[in-house]
């Protein structure tokens, strides 16, 4: 198990490098730059700015300069906001974004797993149909529309919850954004869980377990859930990264002080430093999540450990 974990960590390194490279060059392909505004800057100022951020050097040199700094743990400066760098952004915005994404993740995963199991056990009965409806809504309605609708109903018409904004420590302000984030995630998880649970309940080994007279509860708890979790677990890593990136948009809609606000602005401004830094941060999170998922996978399915 330990050597398996070690091998997995090693194999993540080249993937990280490739991803950084791709992000770096794709970003430069986009037209415009950090200093193109509605009002053109004087040529000397522009030249100085470009020199300051090494933008006057050949692209390949810039790339190696960037990698060099990255290896020292420096994600780079903002090219638009003076004196502000990616580390500042992470320090200010990331705790909030992470809290929100994680609470959405935990809530959605628990609800999704339970709903999926209940639906599988009651296949083609009313709990199953209710779930299918909720899943459809979660998957089909995009988060910006869902956010607007919830703001309208619960924030404006009913007045139960604040429609947006942030007051430190207020849970009420988190309810709607977390719901918008969590719903599609819970929907996907419950659908996966329902499918794999139905499959597992039809396997020969579940029939064996029933033939032993273990009782349906023990059959489910010991024999069905663990193997049924496999496809769900493989979704959890990417799922959490969807939540983290999805929260960028949701933060913007609800006016919350996470990374999202800065990131969206930076992308519009072609702020290479912030966009690349944030993207790379997310990439590392996703790699780490996938690693964790692989390790959980190895625990759930003993066959994986030997590959």
């Amino acid at each position: 198990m330990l050597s398996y974990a070690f091998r997995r960590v090693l194999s993540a390194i080249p993937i990280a490098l490739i991803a950084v490279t791709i992000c770096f060059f794709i970003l430069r392909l986009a037209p415009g730059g950090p200093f193109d505004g509605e009002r053109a800057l004087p040529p000397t100022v522009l030249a100085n700015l470009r020199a300051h951020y090494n933008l006057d050097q050949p692209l390949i040199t810039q790339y190696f300069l960037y990698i060099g700094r990255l290896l020292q743990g420096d994600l780079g400066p903002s090219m638009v906001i003076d004196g502000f760098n990616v580390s500042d952004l992470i320090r200010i915005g990331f705790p909030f974004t992470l809290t929100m994404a994680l609470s959405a993740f935990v809530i959605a995963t628990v609800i999704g797993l339970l709903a999926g199991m209940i639906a599988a056990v009651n296949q083609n009965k009313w709990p199953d149909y209710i779930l299918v409806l909720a899943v459809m809504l979660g998957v089909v309605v995009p988060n910006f529309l869902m956010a607007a609708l919830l703001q309208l109903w619960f924030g404006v018409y009913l007045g139960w919850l604040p429609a947006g904004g942030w007051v430190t420590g207020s849970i009420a302000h988190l309810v709607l954004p977390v719901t918008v984030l969590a719903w599609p995630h819970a929907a996907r998880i419950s659908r996966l869980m329902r499918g794999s649970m139905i499959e597992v309940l039809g396997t020969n080994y579940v029939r064996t377990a029933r033939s032993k007279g273990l009782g349906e509860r023990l059959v489910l708890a010991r024999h069905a859930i663990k193997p049924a979790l496999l496809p769900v677990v493989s979704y959890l890593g990417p799922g959490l990264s969807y939540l983290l990136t999805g929260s960028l948009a949701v933060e913007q809609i609800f006016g919350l002080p996470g990374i999202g606000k800065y990131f969206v602005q930076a992308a519009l401004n072609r702020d290479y430093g912030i966009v690349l830094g944030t993207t790379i941060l997310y990439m590392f999170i996703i790699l780490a999540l996938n690693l964790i998922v692989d390790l959980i996978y190895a625990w759930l399915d003993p066959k994986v450990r030997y590959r």
Partner: protein
Amino acid sequence: MTKVLDVQDLSVTFALHESEVRAVNNLNFSLEAGETLAVVGESGSGKSQAFLSIMGLLAKNGSTSGKAMLGDVNLVGMEKSKLDRIRGKDIAMIFQDPMTSLNPSLKVKTQLAEVLVKHRGFDQRQAEKTAVEMLERVGIPEPAKRANAYPHEMSGGMRQRVMIAMALLCQPKILIADEPTTALDVTVQAQMLDLFKTLTDDFGTSLVIITHDLGVVAGVADRMMVMYGGRAVETGNVDELFYDPRHPYTLGLLHSTPHIAKRAERLDPIQGLPPSLEHLPKGCSFNPRCAFCFDRCLEERPPLAPVEPGSTRQKACFYEGPLKYGKVA
């Protein structure tokens, strides 16, 4: 002899969208203490479904009627929670495919020990110790070490031994083995049959072997029941049925088996296909394929009745003349 299992008028139907399939029709048989009964028939003859229904393991769209008396309790229609106190303890089952019948994510000892924890009230440690002893009994080398293995670390034969150990942990009155050797190598098959014989003798367990392999029947069974189209068509002692079959279907089965002492020629299969269980033919289900079929067979269904008054052998056939296979074109 005492009857351990008495099945009366057992029927199994599966509901489909528009129709229903009658997999087992009014089956009657009994099982004596300590005997080995072979249930023989081709695919779709209802032999597996009959026993799955007794175990309460039918697919969701299946329903059972009739009686299956284990002592004085009827297993058919019993509440699942009550049935769970009986299955695994008094009546156990082994399935065809050992590769998929064990849970891949649980250690072998966990899967064995839980039976004893549930039915015998053992604590975990005691149960695991007994499980290891049982593994040794079914001929698994280094049982203490193998108990900690996962199913995928074992061969098919080894897994089937584990299944046998699991089924016999509580020394059940009845062991149902559904094609227990079909998925195994021929050499392993023989070992497995020996093991069945020895262990069921030791525990006084009655054995039901569901199979389409007449070699298996000849090797272990005392009595056999031949099934066709969801009904029993002939029952009796193995020797009697092998040397003097009284139903054309039994005769056909025997003729379509390769024989080691004969020259290898083309086998003589039973012509035609098994009947659709949705639309069984009128009269005797076997009539479209039967070389001895006459008018009455097309109109009336022959009941399963003693071949001679007072005989324990039964057949469901109107034809009383000599059964010689030369008659088939």
